[in-house]
């Protein structure tokens, strides 16, 4: 089926309600949204910096969205990922899926998240009062991809 794919890599914030409304307007019947926020895991986080690979990032997100649309019957997919400096609590990214089937919408959103974590060229750096450090990728993130192979 034809799916409406929207991918954006941007420094500015996004309007979750407006993005959800766009997908609701497809008439699909089921819309799932997921939003990722900057969290202060260890305490003392001043801000997070998200570096990315301009050019590759857009291609990788588009490929991941297209893959989701191939695997599940989706009317629409939205992937928005921010970069640059983000304060604790700020929105980092969102995915939204629209489908006639609830399970497809949920599974596709879950798939998108797993792939964004370890296949989209972003790198998180946490800046605290004590200094700054790159966030390490985890084995769990990589293992999560096996669920979909």
């Amino acid at each position, binding site marked *: 089926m034809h799916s409406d794919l929207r991918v954006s890599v941007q420094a500015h914030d996004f309007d979750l309600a407006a993005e959800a409304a766009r997908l609701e307007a497809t008439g699909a019947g089921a819309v799932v949204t997921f939003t990722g926020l900057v969290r202060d895991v260890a305490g003392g986080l001043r801000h997070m910096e998200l570096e990315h*690979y301009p050019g590759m990032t857009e291609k990788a997100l588009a490929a991941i969205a297209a893959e989701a649309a191939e695997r599940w019957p989706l009317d629409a997919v939205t992937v928005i990922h921010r970069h640059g400096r983000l304060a604790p609590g700020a929105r980092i990214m969102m995915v939204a899926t629209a489908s006639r089937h609830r399970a497809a919408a949920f599974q596709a959103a879950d798939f998108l998240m797993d792939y*964004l974590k*370890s296949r989209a060229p972003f*790198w998180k750096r946490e800046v605290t009062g004590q200094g700054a450090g*790159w966030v*390490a990728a985890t084995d769990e993130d*990589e293992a999560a991809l096996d669920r979909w192979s």
Partner: protein
Amino acid sequence: MRVLYFAWVRERIGEGSEEVETAAATVRDLVAELRAREARYDLALSDMGAVRVAVDQELADLDAPLAGVREVAFFPPMTGG
């Protein structure tokens, strides 16, 4: 060929991108050439198990051929989402 570095690989090498004249046949050969240049490259690329590679903006492995390639990037495992 344009070579790009991101995150801590960029920090260790001290720049984000550069033009490299190379006859390297594969990514592995390019890594060896870069490491032989200067200590900062050797430091950044000594453990390729901790470094990911993209060739013309697609993820690739060390055996990927470089003939006709315009852009190679080195970076740590990605932490998006």
